[in-house]
């Protein structure tokens, strides 16, 4: 059946064959290496997108929220400290709400660090007030912090800036690392394709000479190599991206429900997977351009 189909195609599409023969089995190692590169690139891309999303989620969670922390003082009634702080907050323009967090909830926040044991009464657990800000007219937080400190001894305003800036720096570092990894992977892929193109040209030197002698231009010959490497890059890219997508999906399944405490889950969202399509396209483009440039460079040194 296949033989008959091939004969049919050979008769109907007599010029379908490439002028430069594909290397057949010898190309499989090349597919494998580029597929591994694309797998790594896809994983790097997936991790970058996930870290970026998680950092954004964390920042969004903290946007428009500040916390007032009041440490109990032996010389003061904690209730009067809290009510004074609440009064100041309610009088400050740009604050939507101020809610005291029950001590039970505060204790739960400490649970990951201290365990689920009953806290001794002499441990002064700070009281927390969750404050929601009006995004359209946020108050002057520095002035508010000073006013709280003056009026309520032991009160501190936490605008989470330090946490957010460290989070942004962490996310930026990870993104930078992933981009550097992507750059190295692309550079390695270019090196591999340059080597493979030169090897293919050396293996087909006799054919190239015949093509030159019957009047083929360099761009025609280079076109044969670039077309072959375009498909190698695309096929290997698809293999790598599919492998990476499977890994990321498995990691997502593994990490689902593990977003405990205040950290959101680290799983890959569905929006990440379409972005992986870029990897085979990038791989094909890199292979195409590299093979073309290499072939034209080698051919320019012939007669």
């Amino acid at each position, binding site marked *: 059946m296949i033989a008959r189909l091939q004969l049919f195609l050979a008769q109907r599409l007599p*010029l379908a064959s490439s*002028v430069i023969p594909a290397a057949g089995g010898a190309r499989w190692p090349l597919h494998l290496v580029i597929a591994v590169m694309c797998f790594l690139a896809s994983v790097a891309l997936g991790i970058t997108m996930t870290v970026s999303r998680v950092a954004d989620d964390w920042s969004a969670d903290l946007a428009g929220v500040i916390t007032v922390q009041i440490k109990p003082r032996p010389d003061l009634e904690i209730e009067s400290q809290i009510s004074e702080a609440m009064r100041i907050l309610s009088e400050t323009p740009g604050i939507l709400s101020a809610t005291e967090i029950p001590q039970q909830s505060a204790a739960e926040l400490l649970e990951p660090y201290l365990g689920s044991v009953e806290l001794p009464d002499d441990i002064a657990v700070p009281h927390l007030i969750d404050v929601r800000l009006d995004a359209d007219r946020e108050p002057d937080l520095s002035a508010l912090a000073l006013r709280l400190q003056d009026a309520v001894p032991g009160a501190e305003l936490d605008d989470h800036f330090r946490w957010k800036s460290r989070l942004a720096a962490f996310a930026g570092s990870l993104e930078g690392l992933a981009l550097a990894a992507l750059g190295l992977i692309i550079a390695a892929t270019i090196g591999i394709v340059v080597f493979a193109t030169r090897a293919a040209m050396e293996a087909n030197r006799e054919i190239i000479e*015949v093509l030159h002698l*019957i*009047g083929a231009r360099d761009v025609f010959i280079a076109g044969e190599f670039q077309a072959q490497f375009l498909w190698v890059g695309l096929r290997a890219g698809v293999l790598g991206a599919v492998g990476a997508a499977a890994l990321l999906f498995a990691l997502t399944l593994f990490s689902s429900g593990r977003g405990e405490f205040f950290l959101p889950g680290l799983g890959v969202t569905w929006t990440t997977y379409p972005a992986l399509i870029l990897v085979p396209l990038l791989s094909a483009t890199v292979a195409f351009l590299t093979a073309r440039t290499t072939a034209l460079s080698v051919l320019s040194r012939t*007669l």
Partner: protein
Amino acid sequence: MVRFENVGMRYGMGPEVLRDVSFQLSPGSINFLTGPSGAGKTSLLKLMYLASRPSRGQISMFGSDVSQLGREDMPDLRRRIGVVFQEFRLLDHLSAFENVCLPLRVATSPSANYEADVRELLTWVGLGERMNATPPTLSGGEKQRVAIARAVVAQPNLLLADEPTGNVDPEMGIKLLRLFTELNRMGTTILIATHDMSLVERTLEAGHLHIDGGNISTMREARVDPRGRPVELK
């Protein structure tokens, strides 16, 4: 058409294989190049089909000084030259049909424009039933006919053939020579390198160059009929 003036050629630092070669081929002529093995026939043909450059002297092809041409000019010049290589140099992974199409394909002509002509040409050289066969499955004579078909398919201005009848029976040899004369009648200048003196004697209108020890001598000038009448085969 083709003019060599005091051309010398050597491979690397070796001795000269061609020495002070001077001759010219008139447009529309048929010429034979004879000489013993190792005399320099193939080296001379290499210079003519632009696979090598001379060590010295001047080569003029189609009115252009070859030494003045850049790489980018070579393809256009080479497309005006058809070559039958002694060792055929067919592409083994392509069918006979695809091999013959190659000169037209590299010239980026749409395949629909020449497929029928290529089929007709292959049928004419007796390969109508072998069009889809690849060179490794063809006999020596069949390969030679594919090589000849590939050389003439684009109707070149100059045809260079290195022992084109060496692997075919006398009857096919005569038939192929008729193909060359048909091509010559349409204006193609032809140079055939051969050991077969009977071919040279049979074609009295043809010029005869003899090369020996790297030196060339003109044994007989080609006669060109200004009315374009084909040379007569005896």
